C-alpha cells in the first residue's frame, strides 16, 4: 500500500468552556477526541456527521486554523503540530480549504481577480507580471470566463461564487483540499455542477480531497472512502461501497436510513434516532453514541456505558467502533 499523504494520529482538540476561581479548567468541550485517520494521495475521503460532531474542527486543524490540543498531523514525514508556527506555514501551503458558505467567504469589497490573486501575491508563487495570466487560467479551470476577473462577488450566483472559492484554493497549487460542505448551501441542480467540477479538477491537478458533509448522499457520489464521525470520534471508516452495502455501526445505519428515497413507492420505515446530538461538553465515559443507540440492548455484557469502544479493523479496510462486533471486545 502507498504511503498516506497525511496522517492524523491521536489528534484531539479541546475547548475550555469554564474555569474555576484559580483558572483551572472545570469544563471541556471535546470537539475532536483522540482521532486517527490516514488520507492517501489521489483519494477523496468523505467525512460525515451531524452538526457539532467535530468534522469542521478536523478540517480547521488540517489547514492550521486551530492548533491541536494533543496528537500529531504527519505530512510528508513531518509532524506539523510539533513545528513552530512559521515553519508550519510552509507546509500548510499544500493544504487548502473550500468554505461552506459561498456568500460569506468572499470579501465583498474585492474583485474576483484580486481574491484569487491575493494568495499568489502573498506567498510569492508567481512573478508579478504573470499573476494576471495565472488568475485567468484558474478562472477558466473552474469554468468561469477570464473576463469575470473585474467583477465583484455580489454579481455572481451561489454556484459561481463557490467556483471562485475553488479557484482561490487552487491558486496555492495545493495537494490536499479540505472541502467543508461545499455544496450544502447550493440548489440541487447547481450542486451537481460543483460536484462534477471538483471531480474533474482532482484528475486534472492530481488533488486529494477531504470532503466534509453532514449527509451520506452527497458523499456517496464523490468519495472513495468514508469516515463517520460522532461527537469527536470516528465510529466507522470503510471504502464507500463497503460502507453503503454493509454498514456496521448503528449510527451509520441510522444515517443511511435518513437519506430520502427517490421513489415514493419505496417509502420505508426508517431507523429514527431519538433526540438531538448529545452535547460534546464534558462527555460521559463510555460510547458517545450510547444515549441515542437503539441497538444497545442487543449485546449482553458490553461496556457501552463504561468505555468508548476502540476503532478496530473488522474486515480489510473496514473499521468500526462498536461492541456489537466481536473484534472490538
Amino acid at each position, binding site marked *: 500500500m502507498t504511503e498516506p499523504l497525511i496522517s492524523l494520529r491521536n489528534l484531539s482538540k479541546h475547548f475550555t468552556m469554564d474555569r474555576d476561581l484559580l483558572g483551572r479548567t472545570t469544563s471541556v468541550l471535546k470537539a475532536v477526541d483522540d482521532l486517527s485517520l490516514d488520507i492517501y494521495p489521489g483519494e477523496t475521503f468523505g467525512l460525515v456527521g*451531524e*452538526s457539532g460532531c467535530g468534522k469542521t474542527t478536523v478540517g480547521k486543524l488540517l489547514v492550521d486554523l486551530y492548533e491541536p490540543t494533543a496528537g500529531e498531523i504527519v505530512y510528508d514525514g513531518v509532524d506539523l503540530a510539533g513545528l513552530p508556527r512559521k515553519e508550519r506555514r510552509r507546509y500548510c501551503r499544500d493544504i487548502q480549504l473550500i468554505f461552506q458558505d459561498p456568500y460569506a467567504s468572499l470579501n465583498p469589497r474585492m474583485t474576483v481577480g484580486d481574491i484569487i490573486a491575493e494568495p499568489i501575491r502573498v506567498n510569492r508563487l508567481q512573478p508579478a507580471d504573470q499573476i494576471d495570466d495565472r488568475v485567468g487560467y484558474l478562472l477558466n479551470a473552474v469554468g468561469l470566463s477570464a473576463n469575470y476577473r473585474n467583477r465583484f462577488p455580489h454579481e455572481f*450566483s*451561489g*454556484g*459561481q461564487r463557490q467556483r471562485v472559492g475553488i479557484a482561490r484554493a487552487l491558486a496555492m497549487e495545493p495537494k490536499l483540499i479540505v472541502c467543508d460542505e461545499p455544496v450544502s448551501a447550493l*440548489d*440541487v*441542480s*447547481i*450542486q*451537481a*455542477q460543483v*460536484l*462534477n467540477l471538483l*471531480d474533474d479538477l482532482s484528475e486534472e491537478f492530481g488533488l486529494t480531497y477531504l470532503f466534509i458533509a*453532514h*449527509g*451520506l*448522499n*452527497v*458523499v*456517496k*457520489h*464523490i468519495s472513495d472512502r468514508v469516515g463517520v464521525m460522532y461527537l469527536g470520534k470516528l465510529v466507522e471508516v470503510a471504502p*464507500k*461501497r463497503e460502507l*453503503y*452495502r454493509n454498514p456496521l455501526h448503528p449510527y451509520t445505519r*441510522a*444515517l443511511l*436510513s*435518513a*437519506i*430520502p*428515497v*427517490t*421513489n*415514493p*413507492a*419505496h*417509502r420505508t420505515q*426508517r431507523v*429514527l*434516532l431519538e*433526540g*438531538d*446530538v448529545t452535547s460534546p461538553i464534558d462527555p460521559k465515559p463510555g460510547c458517545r453514541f450510547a444515549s441515542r443507540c437503539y441497538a444497545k440492548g442487543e449485546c449482553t455484557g458490553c461496556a457501552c456505558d463504561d468505555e468508548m469502544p476502540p476503532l478496530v479493523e473488522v474486515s480489510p479496510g473496514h473499521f468500526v467502533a462498536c461492541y456489537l462486533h466481536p473484534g472490538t471486545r
Partner: protein
Amino acid sequence: MTMPDAMNTTAAGSSAAGAHAANAANAADAAGAHAATPSERPIILDVKGLSTDFVMKRGTVHAVRDVDFNVHAGEVLAIVGESGSGKSVASLSILQLLQAPGRVVAGEVCYRGRDLLALPKREMRDIRGNHISMIFQEPMTSLNPVFTIEDQLTESIRTHMGLDKKAASERAIEMLRLVGIPSPEKRVKEYPHQMSGGMRQRVMTAMALSCDPDLLIADEPTTALDVTIQAQILALLADLREKIGMAVILITHDLGVVAESADRVVVMYCGQVVEEATAQTLFERPLHPYTLGLLASIPGMEDTETDEQLYMIPGMVPNPLNLPPGCAFAPRCTFCIEQCKSEMPPLVELEGGRKLRCFVDVTAESAGPAPTLPDEPTGPAPTLSDEPTGPAPASPVESAGPAPTSTDSGEASA
C-alpha cells in the same frame, strides 16, 4: 403521545370561543379522510391565476406568474423548485404576508369558498394561524430572541382560542410534548438561543400547530437541519397529519423530501407551474425536461457500482428581470425546439389530473436529448392546439399518463 387530550382542550376552547366552524369541518374531513383517496376529498384551498410582482427601480420582477393549484383536505401537496422559482412568494401571497415591494396583482385564493385576497385585514388575521398556519424557513431567525418560548407560543393560542393565561400555557406545553420536545414544562421557560436548530424547528412546528390548523404551509421545514433531525421532523408531520387530518403544503427544493412525504407535486420554474402530478407518477415518469433534470441531478441516488458523473442541468436560472420570451427553461433545456424560444407553452391538463407546460415529448426518444420531431400532425407536433390533450406527449401503456395517442414514438418508448 397525548393527542386525545390536546383534542379535548381544543374542543373545549372552541366551544368557549364559538368560532371554530372550520376546525369542526376539518375534523369531519379527517373522519372521511381514511375512506377516500386524497384527490376525492373536498378541495379546501383553490389558487387560481395567482400573480405576484415586485416593482423595483431596476424593473418589475414577476415572481409568481399565473399560478394555479389546489389542495384537498388532508393531503400533502409539495411545491418544488430552486431558489427564485417563486415557491415561497406564492405561499406568502396566500397568507398575504408579502412585504413591499411585493404585491399580488391578479388571481384569487379561495379557502373554503372565501376569497382570501378580498378579505378585510381583521378577518384575514383570524384565518392566519387559526385555519391556515405556516412554518417558516429558518428556525433561527423566525423566533423572537427576547421572548421565551412560552410567550411566543401562548400569544397565538390566546388570540385565536380565547383561552386564559393558565390554559394557554398548558396548551403550549401540550404542543411541545406533541412535537417531541423532552421535559416541555422546563423548556417552555427557555429562550430560543438555549435550543438547538432541531428544537427550534420543533417549536416553530408546535406554534404552527397550536390552533389545530386546517392547512399547514411548511416552507423548507427541514432545510436547515441535520439529516437525522430532518427524518424526525418529516415523521412528525406525517404523524400529525394522520392524527389531526390537516392538509400540508410542503415547499422544498429537495426532491428526496418530496418522495418521502408528498401525495401530489407541483414543480415551479421562474414563477410558473411547469408540471403537476401525483408523487408516484412524477417520480416514475417525469414529463417536463426540468423535472427530469432535477431528478437526475440528485446526488447519492445512483447505483454505487457506477462512478459516472452526475447529470447536470446546464446553465443557470435566468435573471428574473430579463426572462426569455418563450419558455423560461428553453435556454437550459436539452429538448428545446425553435418554438420554445419564441412562444410560451401553455399549461395543459393531461389524463389523470396531470398538468404539463412543454411542447416537447420527452419520453419520445428516451435515448438522447433534443429529439427531432416528425412533421406529421398526429404526432406530438410542436403546434399549439386548443384541445385539452394538445401537445400531449404520445404516451404508452400507463393509465395515469397522458392521453394515449398511438404513434411511432409511443411504441418506441414502450
